[in-house]
């Protein structure tokens, strides 16, 4: 073991050094308190120190106190060497942070057993420090793995619906199926009304409840074969498989009725409402999924705008805005049907 000794008396220092060297220890000798503290505060310091109580510059108890202030994960074991063997001295030394005492002139066999006790503690402390380091490393690795998994994940943590990534993966596949089997689909874009107001007045955790509640309504309302996704924030997307162009109003009206009946039955402590826009998707559509989403999103915004105006005028709110993407031509860029 590497041992620091701090002893200003040259004869005592030499005897101590010779004794420890004889026992196979590597000895670092210092002659004053400051030099001893410098050694203990350096990187990779000796893990055991035998400190004379009375030293020039800093005395043994000062060193103990300052070393304890350093707060290392592998603190050195400190033995105070002193001619004082009173109870007061013992208490003072231990209070300063010493681990053990040795009275001068030291007895060789006593020193030997005290060093054995010290090395047990030092070994234990080191293995603990290693264990803590390993655990910290394991925690970091786990966090990295979870982050990687989250990036790979296809579902949304809060609602359990698909996330954007999951939706794109599965919707592309579904649209290919629709083309092959020649059926139409509908892409619905939904946006929760007034989430910001809920967050501001009732807190974000209630806001999260509102998002979860809407996800629940979507799950109850649509079929298992439809793809439900939360695109982020308060926005939802549904790809409804195997529908006719003419089914659009029915599908969207039914969604609004589902929201209303949920509110009636559950009576949540917040306002739950959704603006929806949708587009019909021909089986052999030439539009990409991104383009279809933009169209549905625009329809949803139109719906939201109309709902605001209607609310201000005290009129009945439109349930949806339906946009038939396939009818879009240069002369007639939009055909918008608002359903009430």
């Amino acid at each position, binding site marked *: 073991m590497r041992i620091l000794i701090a002893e*200003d*008396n*040259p*004869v*005592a220092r*030499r*005897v101590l050094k*010779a*004794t420890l*060297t*004889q026992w196979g220890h590597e000895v670092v000798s210092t002659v004053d308190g400051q030099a001893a503290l410098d050694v203990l505060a350096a990187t990779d310091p000796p893990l055991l120190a035998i400190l004379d109580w*009375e030293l020039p510059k800093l005395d043994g108890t000062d060193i103990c106190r300052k070393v304890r202030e350093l707060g290392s994960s592998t603190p050195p074991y400190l033995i105070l060497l002193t*001619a004082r*063997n009173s109870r007061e001295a013992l208490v003072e030394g231990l209070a300063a942070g010493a681990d053990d005492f040795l*009275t*001068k*002139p030291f007895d*060789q066999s006593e020193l030997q057993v005290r060093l054995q006790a010290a090395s047990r503690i030092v070994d234990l402390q080191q293995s603990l420090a290693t264990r803590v380091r390993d655990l910290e490393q394991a925690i970091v690795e786990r966090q990295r793995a979870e982050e990687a998994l989250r990036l790979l994940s296809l579902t949304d943590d809060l609602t359990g619906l698909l996330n954007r990534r999951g939706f794109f993966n599965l919707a592309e596949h579904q649209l290919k199926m629709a083309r092959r089997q020649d059926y139409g689909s509908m892409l619905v874009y939904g946006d929760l009304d007034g989430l910001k107001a809920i967050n501001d007045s009732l807190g974000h955790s209630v806001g999260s409840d509102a998002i979860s509640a809407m996800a629940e309504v979507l799950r109850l309302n649509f079929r298992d074969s439809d793809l439900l996704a939360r695109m982020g924030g308060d926005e939802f997307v549904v790809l409804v498989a195997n529908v006719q162009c003419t089914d659009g109003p029915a599908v969207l009206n039914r969604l609004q009725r589902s929201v209303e009946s949920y509110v009636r039955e559950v009576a949540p402590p917040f306002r739950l409402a959704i603006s929806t826009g949708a587009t019909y998707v021909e089986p052999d559509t030439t539009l990409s999924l991104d383009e279809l989403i933009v169209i549905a999103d625009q329809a949803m915004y139109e719906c939201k705008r109309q709902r605001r105006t209607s609310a201000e005028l005290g009129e009945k709110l439109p349930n949806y805005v339906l946009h038939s993407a396939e009818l879009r031509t240069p002369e007639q860029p939009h055909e918008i049907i608002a359903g009430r």
Partner: protein
Amino acid sequence: MSYTEIETNAFQIVPPAAHIKVLDPPAAKSPIDVTMLNLLEDMQGLDEPNLVVELIDLYLEDAKLNLEKIEAAIVRRDLHQLKQAAHSLKGSSSSLGANQLAGWCHLLEMFESMNDWTKVPKIFVNLQRSAVEACDYLARERDRRS
């Protein structure tokens, strides 16, 4: 140790070591308890064949220095300096088994807290005699070995 005990010791001029519990009683008549020297001799291996000689040299040098300091402190009536030098000489002396001398040093050290000069010169005479004996003994041991 009470003040009266110190006073008694100082005037009886008996080697104080025998009365001080923290120190081992010195071997009969010999100024050096050879247990320590023998232990050190046993430790001399291939690494440090001249350890005892080296230690004696260190001791003689240190003792001379501290005796001078003690004398100077007495001349200047500096009890603090006196205590420090006596403490240092005590450390060296007990390391090599010069227990009688260490005992006198210990006694001298205690006068600082009592701020008392009256016994100091008398104790110093005894300390000096003890130091001469110890140094002579160690010097002979040194010559015998080298």
